[in-house]
């Protein structure tokens, strides 16, 4: 037990570069596998949470643009959504990495200030960018569907109160759209967290062996020729992560639906399984 605490101390934050430098090489204990894979989970949470947060705002803008009647707004949004929903995330990672590597090494001169670009090829920035754009496209489609399914009566009621423009959007359209889209958005959030496992499997290199949970799991599976321990551990961690997400999104869902009689009951999560 005390040995495991020592392992936790050595490797608990290994994924972000704190603690023991060298990874264990032989005689892997179960504790080491749990701790290192768990420490890799920090990256999954980092990518998932930040991409979800930034992507949420972008997705709302995109959904409004796609629902707009103005072709100069609608067409770019439609193309953006098609581009990111129609191609594999895996390929998007590759393209982003190759494109970011082509940026000039020395940095770009903007009005006399040299902007460093080398950090863009690192996973924490480059992969995050791809994930943000990707989840924005998927969520925008969900929000767009919700915007189209707004009950006519609510819009008419808003009109009757004399609400227009931004006020109408903020007080009627947006809350209702969120309420309608929330179950599907929960699903998207879960898939986004699952997609974060691709980051270190695509071309973004794991700097100083600081990788995500799947990176460490495959390290152990490769070293021990035994897939029956490491992969189930990642799977277990992800099930826990999924449960946490469902819990968090359930709280938001209850708040969004609090004015509806009978809807406040426990949210029954029906996973769509499919992104």
């Amino acid at each position, binding site marked *: 037990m005390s040995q495991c605490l020592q392992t936790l101390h050595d490797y608990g934050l290994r994924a972000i570069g704190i603690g023991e430098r060298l990874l264990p090489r*032989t*005689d*892997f204990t179960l504790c080491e596998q749990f701790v290192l894979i768990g420490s890799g989970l920090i990256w999954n949470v980092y990518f998932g949470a930040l991409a979800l947060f930034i992507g949420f705002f972008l997705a709302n803008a995109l959904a409004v643009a796609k629902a707009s009647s103005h072709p100069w707004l609608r067409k770019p949004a439609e193309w953006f959504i*098609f*581009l990111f*929903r*129609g*191609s*594999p*995330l*895996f*390929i*998007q990672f*590759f*393209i982003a990495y*190759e*494109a970011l*590597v*082509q940026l000039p090494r020395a940095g770009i001169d903007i009005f006399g200030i040299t902007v460093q670009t080398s950090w863009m090829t690192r996973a924490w920035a480059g992969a995050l960018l791809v994930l943000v754009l990707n989840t924005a496209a998927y969520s925008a489609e969900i929000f767009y569907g919700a915007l189209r399914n707004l009950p006519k009566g609510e819009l008419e009621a808003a009109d009757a109160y004399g609400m227009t423009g931004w006020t109408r959007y903020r007080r009627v359209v947006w809350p209702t759209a969120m309420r309608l889209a929330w179950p599907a958005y929960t699903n998207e959030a*879960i898939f986004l967290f*699952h*997609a974060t*496992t*691709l980051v270190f*499997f695509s071309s973004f290199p794991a700097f100083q062996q600081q990788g995500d949970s*799947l990176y460490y*799991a*495959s390290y152990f*599976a490769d*070293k*021990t*020729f*035994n*897939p*029956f321990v490491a*992969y189930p551990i*990642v*799977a277990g961690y*992800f*099930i826990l992560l*999924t*449960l946490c997400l469902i819990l968090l999104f359930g709280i938001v869902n209850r708040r969004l639906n609090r004015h509806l009689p009978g809807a406040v009951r426990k949210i029954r999560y029906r*996973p769509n*399984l*499919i*992104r």
Partner: protein
Amino acid sequence: MFATCADPKTLEGLAWLLCYLTSGKHMLFYLSFGTVILLLAITAPVALLFGFGGALASRSRIAPLRWFGKTYTSMVRGVPDIIFFLFVPIALDQAFEWMRAKVYCDPSVPIRQGNDFVVCPAAKLPLSSSAEWVHQSYGVFLAVIAFAIVFGAFAANVLYGAMNAVPKAQLETAEAYGMSPRQVSRRILIPQMWTYALPGLANLWMILIKATPLLFVLGVEDIVYWARELGGAKTSAYSYPHPDWRLYYFLGILVFYLLMTWGSERFFDRIRARLSAGQATMAGEAMRKAPQ
């Protein structure tokens, strides 16, 4: 390919590009698009079959079979699919070799020696003496099984939902006519469920298309492999030296995938219209009311 390409060093501009794009390696690259399409063509029916079995099993009256079906369908919930793609091929490979080792090898030598999984050469799969294409196709075979298992579980969920969506009254009517449970399934349930299953299956097909680059992770020489291979910077030691062109190769692959998903979407729109005809659903009702 062309006679003029014999000495690429002398070529310029468009002629160089033409020769470059028809070199032997590029032919393999174009063939690998076939690998991807082949994988889709094999995996989709197998996964549908697995899904069908899973859905029927989770509706079964025999408890162990039902438990198996429920476990199978719920296995993909909450766990990223790439974990299964990494896990299933290794696990299957070891299972096959372990079984062969039991038959062909000396039983006194343990298979698992510390951190190593060791089987005697006779039990290796594929045998170390077999040709390169056997190794390749064994890899593809494992990949197909992994894809089929994971997407079968997805499909089982979709089909299970579709089977539950068939109006109960129809099944009860069939029973009232004296059909046995098996007849009800075959004559009413299965023909009726497709229209409910189609949106889910169409989505699944899209996901399957977008999951094919993961073949690269499984070590198959697919389009991603060749794009990295061909696109990487080539020194003048090669017949066609060029700087790092991987970005352009990946953009080509991107266009391929966009075309695939766009075409599939068109195709499913047409099928959806056909399957909705005569159904007791909103779309079917709209078609009935539409002026002929």
